[in-house]
């Protein structure tokens, strides 16, 4: 706990402070970029890109060794991984355009084949004399133990670049995510925008290799975005909340794993993000489970109240227990099911409104489609007093109006 707190406040040494800041930056960039692929419903494309980095890493290592270097320069490995991930994204796009295979099959095929080929290359690297200490396996699950200052700076620069692109392309990316056809009619190049979004994903994937590793980087792109979606219905807020959640997961995860050095950083970061997701799923006010259940119960109550009042007014017997309970709770009926005075007045109003609704539905056929004419909204909320008078006039003497 003490270790965790000191790591949290960047007090437990140069390296873990560096890792925490790097992971937070990565999380912010990933949350923002991930939002757009999530809204475009192409979240798993990022999985293909992430797994496809492996052959690029190995090839970059082999090239650098062949050119006489030691092959472990992070910038070189990142460049290699970016190239092979880009090739994978182009291939996914090509398969979907040129053949009749659906996108998910294209993603899965490219992902597994690139990764399999990467494994082949990895065994080649391990058989090279220079390869034995290469530690390329660390890119599978990330390894922050030996993070260097210039590596953190590389992550920061790439993260800032991703943020800038996100800021510049915010509007076209939003439009394309929600309605690509409309975006096309307003003159936005849909394909180029999609490519830019994928470019962002690529940047995040590549900078995430060092921190969370290629198997789990996809979680940094997807989980914060999905979690943020529960809190709001506005894109700008989803982007902000997702970035915030990504940043918090990165920072907290890195601090936690600094306190327990044997634990891999990437896994902890992902699990922190997942707990944020669970909290959002359950508690978010806009679309969370608790809020939905609450809304559903309230709606159910209103339906039962309305139906119960109408049944009372028509002298129909009520058998439904929930209806009886709701009516009793409002004080409209007594324990033995007989209407109280207050109940009599309300049921008459309910009957009158039901009759008004019937006329209203005949008069405004198009309105009944909007769902507001379900009788659950008070008629005074939907129509002006003038309109209600007109409804009553059409009703004529059919009912006695009790006000």
């Amino acid at each position, binding site marked *: 706990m003490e270790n965790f707190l000191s790591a949290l406040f960047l007090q437990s040494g140069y390296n873990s402070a560096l890792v925490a800041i790097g992971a937070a930056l990565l999380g912010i960039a990933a949350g923002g970029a991930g939002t757009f692929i999530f809204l475009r419903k192409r979240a798993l494309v990022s999985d293909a890109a992430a797994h496809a980095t492996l052959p690029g890493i190995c090839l970059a290592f082999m090239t650098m060794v062949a050119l006489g270097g030691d092959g472990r320069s992070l910038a070189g490995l990142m460049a290699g991984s970016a190239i092979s991930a880009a090739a994978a994204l182009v291939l996914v796009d090509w398969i979907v355009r040129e053949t009749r295979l659906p996108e998910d099959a294209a993603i899965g095929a490219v992902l597994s084949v690139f990764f399999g080929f990467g494994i082949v290359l990895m065994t080649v690297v391990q058989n090279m004399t220079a390869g034995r200490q290469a530690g390329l396996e660390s890119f599978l699950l990330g390894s922050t133990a030996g993070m260097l200052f210039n590596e953190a700076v590389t992550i920061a620069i790439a993260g800032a670049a991703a943020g800038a692109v996100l800021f510049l392309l915010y509007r076209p990316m939003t439009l394309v995510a929600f309605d690509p056809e409309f975006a096309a009619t307003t003159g936005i190049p849909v394909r180029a925008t999609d490519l830019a979004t994928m470019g962002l994903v690529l940047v995040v994937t590549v900078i995430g290799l060092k921190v969370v590793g290629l198997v789990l980087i*996809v979680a940094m792109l997807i989980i914060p975005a999905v979690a943020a979606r529960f809190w709001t219905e506005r894109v700008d807020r989803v982007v902000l909340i997702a970035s915030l959640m990504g940043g918090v997961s990165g920072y907290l995860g890195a601090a936690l794993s600094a306190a327990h050095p044997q634990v891999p950083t990437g896994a902890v970061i992902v699990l922190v993000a997942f707990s944020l997701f669970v909290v959002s799923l359950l508690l978010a006010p806009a679309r969370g489970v608790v809020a939905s259940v609450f809304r559903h119960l309230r709606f159910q109550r209103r339906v039962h109240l309305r139906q119960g009042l109408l049944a009372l007014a028509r002298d129909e017997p009520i058998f439904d227990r929930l209806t009886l309970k709701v009516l009793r709770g409002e004080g409209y009926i007594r324990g033995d099911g007989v209407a109280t005075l207050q109940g009599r007045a309300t049921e008459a109003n309910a009957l009158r409104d039901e009759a008004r609704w019937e006329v209203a539905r005949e008069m405004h056929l198009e309105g009944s489609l909007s769902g507001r004419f379900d009788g659950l909204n008070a008629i005074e909320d939907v129509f002006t007093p003038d309109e209600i008078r007109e409804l009553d006039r059409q009703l004529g003497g059919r009912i006695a109006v009790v006000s």
Partner: protein
Amino acid sequence: MGQEFVQLSLTPMLIGILAAVACALPGNFLLLRRQALIGDAISHVVLPGIVVAFLFTGTVSAWPMMIGASLAAIFAVVLIEAIKRVGRVDAGAAMGVVFTAMFADGVLLLELSDTSSVHLDVEHALYGNLESLIWLAADGWGSLADWTALSEMPPQVGRLALVLALVSGFLFAFWKELTISTFDEGFALSLGIRARLIGFLLVVTTAVAAVAAFDAVGSIIVIAMFICPPASARLMTNGLGHQVAWSTLFAGASAILGYVLAGYAPLWLGAENSVSAAGMIATVSGFILGFACVLGPKRKRIGAAREV
């Protein structure tokens, strides 16, 4: 040649073929149902299942691990479905959330628990160790008829054969129901076919195939074999029966060719060591898919255009 081949290469090849075909068969239906990535998700969540089974039993014996992995796979599928429904999230994103979180959980458990004494690590889970499944008791082709030698075969052969029989049995028994509910769920329901149950059984079958194959060859082959052979076969024909046949052929061919290329080709090229067979099998299946994409007689989409 004979003795060495039977001892060192016959069983890995056989295991590769069995695993590839067992995954490719249900993969055909997953592909048509737009659930191809379920295989990807399942092969990731197998890891926590195995680790939890190990923590419970304290051994690395096969059956508890397979049960643990199957339970984890089923748990993941139920969780994905729940998040999809409750959270109104699309399938891909729900899958991405669940399998990454469960995989991270597996990694964490693995690192926190004391598994140093046993052979259990993430790399092994990812790409298996096909090359090590050798049959030392054999002394030539004659051993195939020798009961004592056969009983010394790696147990994966028997397990995978059993799973393959199970998978083909399921497809054979429910062929009509699977076909109808895959292409037209509404029609299937109107015929009284319990389409949702069939869908769930298909996923369970997939999980069993994935877990059995994973035990022998690692998760990377599993994902490749779920998708690549059926996808290649889809580009060859319009008939479902033919597609299944083609996918079996492609899966078998990938396994044989991949193993040979990994085991022998580097030696022909003058290198000293062979490369990963699992990776090579996946690579070969990718090349087959590549050829099918360029040359397959039914590769084009006809009718409605793709959504933007």
